[in-house]
């Protein structure tokens, strides 16, 4: 593929003290595609995501965004580039409503007064673009929402800002079957709208349902980056658990 990846990480190293968490990790994500990031617990998925999101600094390697080398050193800088991470705990304030949460820390104002109408309209439009009907009302408090709805709000918050890359950390981990389907639909729709979506998941069904590419980490190394259509369920599981599968993965 000749297209430049939006996100291109090459040879990333990251250590915490003596522990080498990431070794020579490569990871790419393309606009309009869902890239699944899989790996067992402790494989370094979360660390890699934190490096992408600017929470951790890199020890070594190249971080290319749109082909340009960058080094985001805070979540704010990453957001400035257009990279948004939806963490597993979602980080929503229960006592605020959907609109308030979506604009938290980045409120629209007119003078010193909050511009509620503009925020409500934009929130509603964003949710509509994700084909989420208005969840009853965008003025419902987050504490009243179900797990899937909260996940939706967190995703909608991430795409509100003309983001280019959205990273979702285990979006369906705590959800039931129907809610998982809805979240996956949204994930697919984000990619169809031209975003580069990175989906971290343990669930092979989810991975095969929505992803275009799979990147597998094994003990802090990239063992495969392949098109989802080219691999089987069993191969991905092998990559996760053993780091190799037939011609894929670590050699030797």
């Amino acid at each position, binding site marked *: 593929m000749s297209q430049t990846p939006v996100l291109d990480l090459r040879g990333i190293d990251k250590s915490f003290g003596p522990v080498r968490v990431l070794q020579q990790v490569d990871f790419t994500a393309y606009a309009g595609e*869902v890239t699944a990031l899989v790996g067992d617990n402790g494989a370094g998925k979360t660390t890699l995501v934190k490096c992408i999101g600017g929470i951790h600094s890199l020890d070594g390697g190249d971080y290319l965004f749109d082909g340009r080398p960058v080094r985001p050193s805070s*979540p*704010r800088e990453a957001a400035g580039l257009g990279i948004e991470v939806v*963490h597993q*705990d979602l*980080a*929503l*304030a*229960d*006592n*605020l409503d959907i609109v*308030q*949460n979506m604009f*938290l*820390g*980045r*409120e629209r*104002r007119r003078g*010193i*007064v*909050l511009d509620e*109408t503009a925020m*409500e*309209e934009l929130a509603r439009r964003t949710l509509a673009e994700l084909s*989420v*009907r*208005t*969840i*009853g*009302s*965008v*003025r419902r*408090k987050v*504490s*009243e929402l*179900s797990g*899937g*709805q909260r996940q*939706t709000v967190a995703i909608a918050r991430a795409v509100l800002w003309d983001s280019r890359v959205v990273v979702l950390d285990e979006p369906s981990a705590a959800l039931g079957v*129907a*809610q998982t*389907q*809805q979240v*996956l*639909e949204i994930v*697919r*729709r984000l990619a*169809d709208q031209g975003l580069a979506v990175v989906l971290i998941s343990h669930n092979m069904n989810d991975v*095969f*349902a*929505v*992803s*275009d590419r799979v990147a597998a980490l094994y003990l802090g190394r990239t063992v495969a980056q392949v098109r*989802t259509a080219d691999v089987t369920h069993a191969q991905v599981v092998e990559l996760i658990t053993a780091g190799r599968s037939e011609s894929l993965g670590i050699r030797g």
Partner: protein
Amino acid sequence: MSTDIPRLADADFAADRRQLDVRSAVSDYWARVRAGELGAIPAILALAFLFVLFTGLRPDTFLSTGNVANLFTQALPVTILAMGLVFVLLLGEIDLSAGVASGVCGAVMAKLIVESGQPWYVAVIAAIATGVVIGTAIGWLVSVIRIPSFVVTLALFLGLQGITLKLIGKGGTVPVRDDVIVALANKNMPLWLGWTLAVLVALGYAASQLLRWNRQRRRGLHGKPVQLVAGRVVVVGAILLIGTFVLSLDRAPSPLVTLAGIPWGVPLVAVLLIIATFVLDRTAYGRHLYAVGGSAEAARRAGINVTRIRMSVFMIASGLAAVSGIVAASRLNSVATDSGAGNTLLYAVGAAVIGGTSLFGGRGRARDAILGGLVIATIDNGLGLLGMDAYANFLITGGVLLVAAGIDALSRRRRSATGR
């Protein structure tokens, strides 16, 4: 790949925006109440109960115009103190030193007027500045050093009493005779001014509510049905005008003089209420306050400076405590060594909590201080009329605070049980 995903009937997100009519709005409200979002209900019920109780027990005196006016001035200091505490409680913190801080600030003001001969406005500014300095110290210790606010303010509760004692001298009092200061709680507005202000505020409230409703409707946003908005405007307007009417009746004990009008402290509280409500509901700062109170971690990740927010609420609380100390000094015409000590703080915390502010953070409004302050003042006033002993007064006030905190805790449990 999108074809692989079966399209679900939009079960979970489908509840499309309902056309809100009165009926669904009322049933929504009732559902919220049942789920533990009590809002102003406990305070209004308590107020109604207390009025019936004390009117029954002291039919001649309790509802006399003189006593009603007295009730309002009695409520002034506790209401202002409680309004400051609402900001602190919104973060789930506590300021136990707010009461004695009001004493220190009152003492600073009195000393400046009496001993240095400063004009009242210099003394008032100095008192408020003192409050803000105290609040900054508390805020720094809590938000930067990270000592629990309970411990910091308990220490200051003792320390500040020492400062008041040092300022005033053992067992002494400093009289306050400045005309402007004394007028705050002891003089009334001219009748025409009181009526004008009441009508203006009522019209302003109506205009702001209806304009907002109209804006929401025009742009197809979520709003309340017009009947409810109108009903609310009518109720608030009626309370304002009836209150003005009662306070405009002649309440002088002798027919030779007339004593009527709204005490000057009431518009002061009204102005503070409007400012505090505006800050909490309409500014980014207020929004961030609620966010930090609801989830400090979510606020931090959203890029909000949690330390600065935490610091600011103590500055606001102590600043308003200073105003409360000034009004209290005005009411008593003096500042004593025990000003702001004793049950002052308990009353103020009680007022905020009875009004509906949660001790767990994240919920509360400026108006809670007014509602709760009236409840507390009514209890204090009624018990005074009944000639209760001091021991009963302490017991009852402590009990009321516990009941209010109990309602708060239970409704919170109810909310989490029903997923709210």
